[in-house]
């Protein structure tokens, strides 16, 4: 596909008040970049009657006010926006913010680091180096409030989910699967493998803002030891857990 090709998403129904524009079924660099570009274009278009826009790694949802507007009009308008967007060969749009989040890897904080490293054919040390070096982006927020899907990791990190769920991982657990990382905002069952833990609390309804991260944000992981993690958790009124945010543009 040439650099100037416009996006041609599949347009699909999502309940009686939604349409989904799907750019692929599985995430790769091209699809996740196209989703971010299309989402931004739809937000900028400010189509009348649209109530919310949300994105996954592979598709963008446009939910509309059925009392004001019908499906056909929304589908046509969204398709026009997609046609006006050029597929970018250069990957994701530049981030607006860069977060640096301290994470303790391995040991009690990341009991499945060894498994993950083995699956990626790396030593544990190299696996952690790769995670720290990765230019991660928040590709989507979802599943639970404020919960970020981070990626994409290099292809060797295409590790399947486990068939058996871990009954519960703690808040702050950093888990890996399918070229992505998730940083849990609440204790949760998961089929992903836990490689580390942060004192970063992505969601707190009593806080302003309740949610720190936004889609598109760049994330850098900073390695800390278990005692440093304990110290960060002991003094963590803001829930940042030592994380810092740099505004880039």
């Amino acid at each position, binding site marked *: 596909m040439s650099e100037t090709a416009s996006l041609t998403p599949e347009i699909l*129904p999502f309940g009686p008040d939604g349409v*989904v524009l799907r750019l692929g079924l599985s995430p790769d660099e091209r699809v996740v970049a196209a989703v971010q570009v299309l989402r931004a274009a739809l937000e900028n278009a400010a189509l009348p009657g649209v109530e919310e826009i*949300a994105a996954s*790694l592979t598709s963008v949802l446009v939910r509309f006010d059925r009392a004001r507007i019908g499906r056909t009009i929304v589908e046509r308008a969204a398709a026009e926006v997609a046609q006006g967007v050029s597929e970018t060969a250069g990957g994701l749009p530049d981030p607006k913010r860069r977060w640096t989040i301290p994470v303790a890897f391995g040991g009690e904080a990341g009991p499945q680091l060894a498994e993950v490293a083995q699956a990626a054919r790396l030593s544990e040390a190299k696996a952690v180096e790769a995670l720290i070096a990765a230019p991660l982006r928040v590709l989507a927020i*979802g599943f639970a409030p*404020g919960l970020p899907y981070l990626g994409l990791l290099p292809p060797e990190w295409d590790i399947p989910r486990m068939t058996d769920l871990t009954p519960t991982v703690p808040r702050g657990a950093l888990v890996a699967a399918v070229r992505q990382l998730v940083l849990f905002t609440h204790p949760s069952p998961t089929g992903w493998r836990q490689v580390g833990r942060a004192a970063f609390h992505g969601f707190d309804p009593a806080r302003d803002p309740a949610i720190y991260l936004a889609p598109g944000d760049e994330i850098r992981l900073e390695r800390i030891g278990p005692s440093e993690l304990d110290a960060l958790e002991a003094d963590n009124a803001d829930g940042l857990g030592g994380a810092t945010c740099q505004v880039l543009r």
Partner: protein
Amino acid sequence: MSELVLHKVGPGCTVQDMGRPGQLSVGLSRGGAADTMALIEAAALLDLKAPVAGIEMAGMGLDLSVTAPMRAALTGAVMQASLNGSPVGWNRSLSLAPGDQLRIGAVRSGLYGYVVPAGGIATPPLIGARATHLAAGLGQALAAGDHLPVGEDTAPGLPPMALRPEERFAGGEVRVMPGPQTGLFDAVTRARFHATAFTRSQVGNRQGVRLDHEGAAFASDTKGIASDLIRPGDIQMTGDGTPYILLAECQTMGGYPRIGTVIPADLPRVAQAAPGQVLRPRAISVEEADALWRSDVDLLRAARARVAPLRRDPHDIPDLLSYQLIGGVIRGDEDIA
């Protein structure tokens, strides 16, 4: 401010309203009442302009009293109830005064019952709503000793009303429209799904309910698909091909393939189906589903037409023997409001 004071509280009682639409991009599903029709019917009974927050009771009720005179409505799943020891029927409004003791017991049909004060429960809104969303950590289950603030009842003198509820408490047909992933299931599997009578499993909560059936699982060709946005009504097939219908408090993203979406009009029927009841999916087109959509305003208008002044049923009159029943002086069923 007036309060509801809770005394004995069943394990699944929470404050619920119409939920928090518009938060999918931050990962928060709409939540709100499992049976939104029950809040709409309560608003119709109480002659309100729009639904207000009430208490949702999952299977077991609670005992409550009030600190000021107010009306309240009892809607959704029919539950045993008494006021100061005398039985009261369901799907009605009633007047409560300080000193009154409203006791709500076990469910009789359906799963989720609602008690809704006319002024609405007035706890501080959190992210734009009062609905408890346990999966997201918003609010918590109610407990004995809780005092819930209630808005003012602007018409406390209105007489008790009765409602003919929309039928939805015994399972039955649920209409299913295509969703984004319907095409990932082949035509034979889809046809078999829509020809199957499912049993509502024992497994279920506000996030979703499992459907049991005899026969093969519902497989799809979906290895390696990315997690994608999901919504209440979506019918997910878990790894072994078992269907789950997602309800109000589902997550916002899921990796399991979805064969279709139960339309909003039939979601209360899914939520209110008790374990063992039969749910039969029926495939409808997107155009049919769109034509069946009704706004909450329209649903409330339609519910008002099902409200009438309460006529007391002789069965609900505990001191029936003290009434004059002979000579046609009192029939026993006239309005005694």
